[in-house]
């Protein structure tokens, strides 16, 4: 039987939505027993949150002073020491999981299945390669532990309403001291979260400047959407890096996505393949974004957006 350990991402005060998505992915394996490891300094509240996720059997509350900030260098040996009892160790394919999970895999001496997008069996998964241009099916050897990251955009969050057992767990191992957290510069958070928002409005190089990018923020706010951007917009300094959508930014799956002044480079499209409806607004009728858009409008965004804002408000 599959016994799956999920490494919980959190910021010290709340679980990241990726945890419930990893649980959904794990639950696709028939008969799997799913445990969640919460590494924190005092993880009682976080563990309670994890215990409420449907499908979870047990929550391992791993309190340790070193877990004040979850760094791969110190988190990986703790998780690896718990892994002996498990056939699978899953984490999210967020920056947190991408940093941490390969370190766990290496400690367990296995390769990692990156970016699970579909589960075909306990050792059989689908995942994207080449920026999503190719989907492969991979098979992990029967006698091998499965360490994997879960492509969060491919799975709905598991529901809450559970009351799983919480087990205080000690990991009695020495942790390295070679890595030190200095600081975190987080962007403002009063807008909906890009990774979980139902609506996202993204702007590209077509906006032309940071000042003019305000048009995107303004429209997004008027429809309660999160704001995203192309790499070109980030590189040009219109918006900070955490708004980048794409192969090397965030992979998202909103119900409604607006691509405004974005050409539709393959690396950008990788990030929005799972969006429900894609709306493209671009002045170039030949822009590749129109090949994937569900609704396309050729026009000057500076004329279109104010009109659109007004029309959607009424």
């Amino acid at each position, binding site marked *: 039987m599959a016994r799956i350990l999920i490494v919980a991402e959190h910021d010290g005060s709340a679980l990241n939505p990726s945890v419930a998505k990893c649980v959904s992915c794990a639950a696709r394996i028939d008969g799997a027993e799913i445990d969640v490891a919460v590494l924190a300094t005092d993880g009682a509240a976080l563990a309670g949150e994890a215990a409420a996720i449907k499908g979870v059997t047990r929550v391992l509350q791993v309190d340790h002073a070193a877990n004040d900030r979850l760094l791969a260098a110190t988190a990986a040996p703790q998780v690896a020491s718990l892994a002996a009892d498990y056939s699978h160790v899953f984490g999210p394919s967020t920056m947190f999981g991408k940093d941490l999970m390969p370190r766990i895999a290496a400690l367990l001496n296995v390769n990692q299945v990156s970016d699970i997008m579909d589960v075909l069996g306990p050792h059989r998964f689908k995942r994207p390669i080449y920026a999503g241009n*190719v989907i492969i099916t*991979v098979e992990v050897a029967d006698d091998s532990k499965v360490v994997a990251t879960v492509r969060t955009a491919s799975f709905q969050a598991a529901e809450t309403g559970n009351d799983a057992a919480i087990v205080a767990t000690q990991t009695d191992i020495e942790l390295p001291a*070679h890595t030190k957290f200095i600081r975190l510069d987080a962007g403002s958070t009063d807008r909906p979260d890009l990774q979980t928002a139902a609506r996202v409005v993204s702007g590209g190089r077509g906006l032309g400047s940071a000042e003019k990018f305000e048009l995107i923020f303004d429209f997004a706010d008027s429809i309660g959407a999160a704001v995203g951007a192309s790499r070109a917009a980030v590189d040009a300094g219109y918006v900070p890096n955490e708004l980048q959508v794409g192969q090397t930014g965030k992979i998202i799956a909103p119900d409604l996505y607006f691509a405004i002044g974005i050409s539709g480079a393959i690396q950008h499209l990788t990030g929005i393949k799972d969006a429900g409806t894609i709306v493209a607004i671009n002045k170039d009728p030949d822009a590749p974004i129109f090949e994937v858009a569900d609704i396309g409008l050729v026009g000057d965004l500076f004329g279109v957006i104010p009109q659109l804002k007004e029309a959607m408000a009424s």
Partner: protein
Amino acid sequence: MKKILVGLKRVVDYNVRVRVRSDGSGVDTDGVKMSINPFDEIALEEALRMRERGDAEEIVVVSIGPAEAQQQLRTGLAMGADRAILIKTDADVDSLSAARILLEIVGRESPDLVIVGKQAIDNDNIQTGQMLATLWGRPQATFASKIEVGDAKLTVTREVDVGLETIEVELPAVVTADLRLNEPRYVKLPDIMKAKKKPLDEIGIGELDVSMDDSIRTVAWEPPPERQKGVMVEDVAGLVAALKEKGLA
């Protein structure tokens, strides 16, 4: 730092739209343009800037791949690397095996720092740097957008989901390069000529004491599901009507 090792992977150029072979037996890479993995170019550029600032003395580029990967190593030498090492194999190299092989080279070269790309754009694995750091028992600083060299340590700014995180790692360490770390230089013709005289060592993979991992096998390749062709609308009114029809406005 005395020495920096940089990993350069030969991959299908990022402008090429790869396709699955019509019989589903793999990815069609026949005759397509091959390049240095873009993140590895950024890794090398950062090492070069460290040397130019006097923070490093020697830069060695390493590639694990077929004989043709010499081209990418020569480009690396033309950019300014001092030496190159090719670990020759025609096999597809998975990330764990790549990390094991790089560890062997680390053992021989004793670098103070290894910089690799954050991700190879062919397999999109995002694993090798972290695995190398782990097997080596050293710290990692992944997705770096800024590196400051200190006394036997680095201060690295990393791209994370909520913004930027800064960490300090003791040397030796492994850093993986993100897009915004720098903009790689263009290679000039005289540099290409000079690079021909720089040393490029070849090591057969059989000469190394590493076992290749075969725990994950790819058993099928398929194109991604196509999105349905959408509609073009004439104006904002048409756009709003189309959204209303989908229950989105």
